[in-house]
């Protein structure tokens, strides 16, 4: 009798569900927006063998400010408040790194095949190509405006090509030496075992799984995973008046995993050569990031030769850029002063 009841209940449920139109989990735009490969209407450039989601604002021949997002695997949308610097006469350039944001996806094996040269071939060569794409004359100055992983990447690049960069704005790089990066990642993700935050990060693994080639599914999962982190003080962004440029956000799960795997294997020191970079560096960190106390900011900034360290109050890891009030009233004036000082 009980068996018959169970079977009947199962059949009823199946019938109810099968009557409704269903979506395809593998569709490229069901859960996450299309990339530049799937949607040619998006602004893009070709750089370093990939189609990158990218755009620029402001006078073409003026000082280039290349904005470099975090992750690896994040996207530039949260940096878009800085577009207002275009009104100050700067050429603001935004690009999603390969495999991230709305840029082209590559298989994991593509990244890992570079071995020890992975960071160089994937990220430094890409940045070099982006700068080359937007640079209109040899004397055009290049400033890197960066956050988190973007700041780690930029420091490595400036150490490798010190003569090519005229200014460096770093915001909360987790660390430059790999051990420091690991320490920061652990501190920023040490969720309470009983917390909703940990539960939100792990429980959905039984609902959605994706193969290494199923980027839309993996990116969606990455987005759910990174949507909120109370430890670093990011509670969601208010993009404000700049939001109309990009309402579509996507993370890159495969590039994130691949970059992490490469770095964990070869343990790069991203501060290598930075002692040769003699221009002024602006180093920002936030008050609300519990994993980034004053002592950590001092430690991480220590290899930087000519720096100004500023703590941004009232916000967390990304808030100095993605919180419009903080951007308008604190970060932007600070950056304008800095940019004026290196003109």
């Amino acid at each position: 009798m009980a068996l018959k009841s169970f079977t009947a209940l199962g059949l009823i449920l199946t019938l109810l569900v099968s009557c409704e139109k269903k979506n395809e989990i593998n569709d490229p735009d069901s859960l996450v927006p299309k990339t530049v490969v799937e949607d040619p209407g998006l602004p893009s450039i070709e750089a370093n063998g990939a189609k990158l989601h990218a755009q620029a604002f402001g006078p073409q021949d003026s000082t280039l400010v290349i904005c470099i997002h975090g992750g690896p695997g994040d996207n530039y949308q949260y940096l878009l408040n800085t577009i207002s610097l275009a009104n100050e006469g700067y050429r603001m350039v935004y690009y999603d790194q390969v495999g991230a944001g709305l840029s082209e996806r590559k298989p994991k094996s593509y990244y890992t095949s570079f071995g020890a040269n992975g960071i160089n071939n994937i990220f430094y060569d890409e940045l070099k190509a982006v700068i080359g794409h937007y640079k209109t004359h040899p004397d055009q100055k290049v400033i890197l405006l960066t956050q988190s992983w973007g700041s780690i990447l930029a420091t490595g690049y400036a150490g490798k090509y010190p003569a090519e960069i005229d200014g460096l704005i770093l915001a909360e790089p987790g660390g430059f030496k790999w051990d420091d990066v690991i320490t920061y990642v652990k501190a920023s993700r040490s969720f309470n075992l009983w917390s909703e935050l940990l539960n939100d990060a792990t429980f959905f693994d039984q609902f959605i799984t994706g193969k290494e080639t199923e980027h839309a599914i993996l990116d969606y999962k990455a987005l759910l995973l990174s949507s909120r982190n109370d430890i670093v003080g990011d509670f969601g962004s208010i993009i404000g008046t700049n939001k109309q440029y990009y309402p579509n956000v996507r993370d890159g799960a495969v590039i994130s995993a691949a970059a992490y795997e490469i770095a964990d294997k070869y343990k790069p020191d991203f501060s290598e050569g930075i002692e040769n970079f003699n221009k002024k560096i602006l180093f920002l960190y936030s008050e609300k990031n519990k994993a980034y106390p004053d002592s950590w900011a001092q430690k991480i900034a220590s290899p930087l030769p000519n720096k100004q360290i500023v703590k941004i109050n009232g916000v967390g890891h990304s808030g100095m850029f993605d919180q419009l009030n903080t951007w308008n009233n604190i970060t932007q004036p600070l950056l304008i002063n800095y940019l004026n000082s290196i003109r």
Partner: protein
Amino acid sequence: MKPLIITIIALGLLQTVKGQTINWKTIDSSKHIVTAGFEWDYSLSFSAGYGYKLNTKLPIVLSLNFTKASGENLLDDFKTKIGGQIVLLNQPTLKGVITLNGIYRRFENDLVRLQNIGSELKGTFGYYKPKWLVACEVGFDKAILTHFKHSDTYKKDIYQNVKDGWYEPATGGNFSYGLQTGYSFKKSDITLNFGKVITQDFKTTPLIPFYLRLGYNYKFR
């Protein structure tokens, strides 16, 4: 920088487990089994269940199980299972058991609410004595149909054209394999299950690729 390394280190072991572990050697005189568990089942969770033993030649137990994930929100994340276990190999001490469950589960965070209908198939083979048991277990948990309902935050700040509704084909699937052991006394069993979880492509794993369950059964007529 996304991986939750610290979490993995902190948890050490752990993850999904599949309902009730029964000492089949001690169940002959019982009809009802009440169970409780504390576990890592894709998150730190508590479970409670009930089993009813049918009067059949091959031992069969029908079961109902509820698992609630920890966290500040009371009922946003949970899992219910309804199904049964049948002992197909029923030697005096060696036993082979098949478990089949239908699953309804729910997940919610700031961005989305997921409701899933799934199934779980598990095989267990082991050595059962009146006072103890040890067995190996292999299971497959399939998330067959999932309903997505995204929050206004997702639609406003992340992706305005996201499609809500039922999704197919199956949105997920995880294999698990491990060991179960238990100690029986009077009308009670204390059981322990632990093992690993791997996704259905055999290449990737859940964020925490382990499971652990400490369980208690009380059996009565």
